[in-house]
């Protein structure tokens, strides 16, 4: 379903992704793990047509996302690391807007919106503005929205960041359920190893822009002689700290909070 070969991305002399190769089978839940700045988000951005790779080849359901942008976009859904909802519209309107943008016919749109919002326990709040939602509710809405156009692949970039254990648990239950009932391939990144161990069929660990290991949880544990995925992860990526600079978006968000209210 996803095929990536020797993928490279360079920004002004800095190489974020250096020759990544992996494959994700249809219906699989694939976790992409790595420390901050390892190149996870950059890889997702390339797969989802937001960035052009410097070199290498990619395939999404047999299509090259760099040349067949529109067709590729119709086939995947994405939940970004940071929110991408319209806060000034209601939950239902957000779903509606997404459905229209993804050419979901009206009747199917209404059916799926109801089914997904019910599943994610948001149906009762469908007419509330998103700005009134908690972080967990927003995330649930984004994931529900990602499934709306029945994508073949759903990309989840750190979907559980900042959520409480209850929300995280529930969220993965739903994602697993939809993966099974709709055969959606799921490509996820997370920093919570327990989540990856619980939901992912296969895992790739990326560090400094390179895939350092991939396989099932059992294989990774065996490879590193560790008794947990976290142990395997630390054995493969070392335990030194990685610092990322604040992006202009982070800085702006702080200013925005002061300005808005």
């Amino acid at each position, binding site marked *: 379903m996803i095929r990536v070969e020797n993928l490279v991305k360079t920004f002004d002399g800095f190489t974020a992704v250096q020759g990544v190769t992996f494959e994700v089978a249809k219906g699989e839940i694939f976790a992409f793990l790595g420390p901050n700045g390892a190149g996870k988000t950059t890889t997702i951005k390339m797969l989802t047509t937001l960035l052009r790779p410097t070199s290498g080849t990619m395939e999404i359901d047999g299509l090259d996302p760099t040349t067949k942008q529109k067709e590729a976009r119709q086939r995947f859904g994405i939940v970004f690391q940071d929110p991408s909802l319209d806060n000034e519209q209601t939950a239902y*309107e957000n779903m509606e807007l997404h459905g229209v943008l993804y050419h979901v016919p009206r009747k199917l749109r209404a059916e799926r919106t109801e089914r997904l919002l019910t599943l994610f326990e948001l149906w009762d709040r469908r007419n509330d503005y998103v700005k009134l939602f908690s972080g967990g509710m927003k995330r649930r809405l984004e994931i529900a929205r990602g499934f709306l156009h029945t994508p073949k692949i759903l990309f989840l970039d750190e979907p559980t960041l900042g959520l409480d254990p209850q929300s995280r648990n529930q969220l993965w239950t739903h994602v697993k359920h939809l993966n099974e009932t709709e055969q959606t391939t799921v490509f996820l990144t997370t920093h919570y190893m327990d989540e990856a161990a619980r939901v992912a069929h296969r895992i790739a660990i990326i560090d400094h822009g390179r895939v350092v290991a991939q396989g099932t949880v059992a294989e990774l544990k065996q490879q590193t002689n560790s008794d947990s995925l976290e142990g395997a992860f630390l054995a493969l990526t070392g335990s030194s700290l990685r610092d990322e600079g604040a992006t202009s978006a982070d800085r702006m968000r702080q200013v*925005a909070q002061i300005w808005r209210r």
Partner: protein
Amino acid sequence: MSAIYILWLRELKRYVRSRVQIVVSLGQPLLYLLALGFGLGPVFQKAGSGSYLQFVAPGVVGMTVLFSSVFSGIAMLWDRQFGFLKETLVAPVPRLHIMIGRTFGGATVAMIQGAMILVVCLIAGFRPQHWLAIPFAFLFVALIAVVFAALGTSIGSTIKDMQGFQLIMNFLVMPIFFLSGALFPLSHLPWAMNVITKLDPLSYGVDGLRGALIGQWHFGFVLDISMLGILAAAFLGMGAYMFSRIQI
């Protein structure tokens, strides 16, 4: 096409729902209309130029449309920060459709604002030469709205933070307003000023509004309409180009 519609509708919904903002955005033009209209009125009258309220009302309508349409484009800054822009940029629709939906949504909102301030002008005592002048004036309101909404989209596609926003306000939007002849007649100006006012796109819009509403033309109908038409096409092209280059 449905993508254009849904994004246009979104701009309208946002506008209708932000009641506080509607009142706030009408405050400034109102101040210009009342403080200058009645404050400068006696001096203007003494200089033999007739009623200043009559003169300034079309300028204030032009100003309202200018501010409102440029803002709508710059509001993209918020969509960028709160992430909604990304949602539209990865959708399987041409970026041009997204840009058109947003821009025309902003232009429509600006026209509504213009209509509201025109009603306020009428209440304050402004009288057009003929009631049919009002639909005629809306031709110019629409053109001003499209020109500056497209400019706003170009700017909104480029700036990434609040500093950029303030820079644009102080060094672009305010000069466009002050140098457009919205507040003073364009005849008998010192030459440097004369040249600058001719370079200001809003000058043609305000002149068209004033011509349509009270029959005072400076550039004339043909020049006004052709300048605004050319600028609308040029800015829409620029907006589409800038929008297509957004990276996130």
